């Protein structure tokens, strides 16, 4: 065969032609743009329009950012530096950053305390958020509320210690008695815990030093973004267990429990949060005996927690309703009692389905904490609208301050949302 060719053909190529590069239009950035940006003339038009919009936004914002002034003591001084040029007066952030983050009355030499509490929050949240971490780390999570309280509020260390002891004693009583009866265990736990707190309170009053190791900071001195974080984290972590209980109570066979849960949930969902906050701030003052100072932050935490728990209960009820009846029957057929069936079979599945809804409420709840500025608490927005905009130096600065507030909230909320997407992939709730 090869002979014939050798005579009849002048040249036979014995190596492969090197691959020539693909046409320019079919490769790299050009191809990507053709496929994604200019695939049809409508898309091309939209791309051009979008680019023009980006250009306009950039032209408007970039000089403002680049010419920004960061070091002046007041708006007037800032305008003198700018000499009529476009530019942001970011010096309000550098001068008042501490008020924006911690409020205006938190002692400035104690800022490290909320700072550490904030960092520890990640350590405490990690074991809950990432299932692959060793379960023993949950001890950190359990201890965190007491440590954080001690760091932020200060005062005598005995208060959080006795609070913790109360829980430990209550749990010990529960663990001893729960084998006999679940209800007996619960009641014993509550009684033992209350007794411990009562005794602890008396001991604390008797032996508390006049000069505690960490200076005591009263609740009314909390403010700024710290207050938003305190309210958001506390209320969310309290409202999830409460919401689960409410959701289960609403499905209960006992008419009384069911009625109480239904009335509670429907009442709270029928009332705007701002009304509840006004009740906490204003109306409660009439019902309490004169002279009692029931901590305002505590009142607000209770109200926001109740509010969020009603919504979370409804989300979880949706999860419970989505489970096939066979799951409940499976629990029964294994001979599990109600708490066991719920804990081992029903709730893990129901909560998995409920994650997107709960995250949705978490994000909303966190943003709703700014409503407390209406009842004259100085959270981040309250600080901006009140003291900072009312100071002779900074009256008239709007974009820089509210932009900063938006940035802080965006970072937190975007973080929550990204985490929930990751969690959904991990649990692959999409299989249904």
């Amino acid at each position, binding site marked *: 065969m090869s002979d014939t060719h050798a005579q009849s053909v002048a040249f036979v190529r014995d190596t492969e032609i090197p691959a020539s590069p693909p046409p320019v239009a079919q490769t790299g950035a050009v191809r990507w743009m053709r496929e994604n940006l200019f695939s049809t003339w409508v898309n091309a038009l939209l791309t051009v329009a979008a680019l023009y919009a980006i250009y306009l936004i950039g032209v408007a914002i970039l000089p403002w950012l680049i010419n920004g002034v960061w070091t002046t003591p007041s708006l007037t001084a800032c305008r003198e530096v700018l000499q009529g040029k476009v530019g942001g007066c970011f010096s309000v952030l550098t001068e008042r950053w501490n008020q924006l983050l911690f409020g205006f009355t938190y002692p400035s030499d104690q800022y490290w305390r909320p700072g550490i509490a904030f960092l520890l929050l990640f350590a405490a949240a990690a074991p809950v958020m990432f299932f692959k971490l060793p379960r023993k780390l949950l001890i950190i999570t359990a201890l965190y509320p007491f440590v954080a309280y001690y760091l932020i509020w200060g005062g005598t260390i005995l208060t959080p210690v006795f609070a913790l002891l109360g829980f430990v004693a209550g749990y010990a009583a529960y663990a001893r008695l729960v084998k006999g009866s679940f209800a007996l265990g619960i009641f014993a736990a509550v009684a033992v815990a209350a007794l411990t707190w009562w005794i602890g309170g008396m001991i604390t009053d008797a032996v508390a030093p006049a000069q505690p190791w960490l200076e005591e900071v009263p609740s009314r001195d909390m403010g700024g973004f710290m207050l938003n974080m305190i309210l958001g984290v506390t209320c969310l972590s309290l409202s999830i267990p409460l919401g689960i209980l409410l959701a289960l109570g609403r499905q209960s066979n006992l008419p009384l429990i069911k009625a109480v849960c239904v009335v509670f949930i429907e009442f709270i969902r029928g009332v705007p949060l701002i009304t509840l906050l006004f009740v906490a701030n204003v109306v409660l003052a*009439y019902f309490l005996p004169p002279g009692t100072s029931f901590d305002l932050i505590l009142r607000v935490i209770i109200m926001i927690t109740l509010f969020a728990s009603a919504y979370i209960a409804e989300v979880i009820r949706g999860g419970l309703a989505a489970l096939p009846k066979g799951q409940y029957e499976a629990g029964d057929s294994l001979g599990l009692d109600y708490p066991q069936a719920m804990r081992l079979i029903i709730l893990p599945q129901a909560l998995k389905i409920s994650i997107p809804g709960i995250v949705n409420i978490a994000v909303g709840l966190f943003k709703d904490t700014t409503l407390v500025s209406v009842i*004259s608490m100085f959270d981040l927005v309250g600080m901006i609208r009140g*003291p900072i905009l009312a100071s*002779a130096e900074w009256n008239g600065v709007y974009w820089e301050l509210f932009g900063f507030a938006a940035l802080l909230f965006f970072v937190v909320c975007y973080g929550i949302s990204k985490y929930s997407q990751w969690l959904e992939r991990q649990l692959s709730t999409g299989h249904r």
Partner: protein
Amino acid sequence: MKKSVFVGVLALAGASAGVAAAGTLDDVKARGTLNCGVVTGLVGFGAPDANGEWQGFDVAMCRALAAAVLGDPTAIQFVPTTGKTRFTALSSGEIDVLARNTTWTFSRDVDLKFDFIGVNYYDGQGFMVPKELGVTSAKDLNGATICVQTGTTTELNLADYFRKNNISYDPVPIETNAEGQQQYLAGACDAYTTDMSGLASNRATFESPGDHVLLPEIISKEPLSPLVRHGDNEWADVVRWTLNALIAAEEAGITSANIGELSAQAGDAPEINRILGTEGNLGEQLGLSADWAKNAIMAGGNYGEIFEKNIGEASPIGLARGLNAQWTDGGLLYAPPFR
């Protein structure tokens, strides 16, 4: 509906508070601090500064009162209140006195059951226009576009004034003061109308305040007064006469500079002696120490000094005394005699 519930709650509160707070003066003395309701932030009138210290015209009233009652101008628990929480905070007993640029009106005094103890600032609605328009009187504003906050008495006063003078205008409705400021600066309206003190503090934040003028006409009455709960006359007297002492001190020429000298011993002016407690027993009659007024004046100076420091022409706000001058200077401040 909403309003009637609100008023009902207030009435209930008023009834219970009357019993609970029979002796505010004794309560304050026993507590050792004065609970003073202030604004959450209003330029010149009350706001915490960069160090977290409360400053301002209304705050100075609290400080003078704390000094008069307790001898210490810093023995105060400031309770910030919003426009929505201020009256309930007072009637529920959370605060002893509300010094928060609150206008003295009939229904607040009578229906809400408060005692307004005396005007500490005479405000009123005015107009701000750009200088280049060349307008010198509100009556020249025929056919002008005017930015006005909707749903406030400001809007009604404006309509009344223009109808009375038989001239027309074109309202540009705005929601908040911040929005009004932006609209006015952007040229969406020829004039901006709100309370004079608000106009002045707005103008102080402009890039070139000199390009804007406040017109001389004042078209409404807004007497701002500190207030206390109805039914505790001893306490109301203490607050009222502390304010009067500040005003009378200016009239009599007692300043924070010369008060040490004047109060060292009884001088030739009997009124000064009675105010400062070197003669007579006015302090005792109020249930306070003899040097109560001296302490009050030393807290921040007399009325004129407080005015100049916080909102006067030397401050960034730059308000003229106007109606708030002494009666001897053509103003409305007229403290009853100390005798």
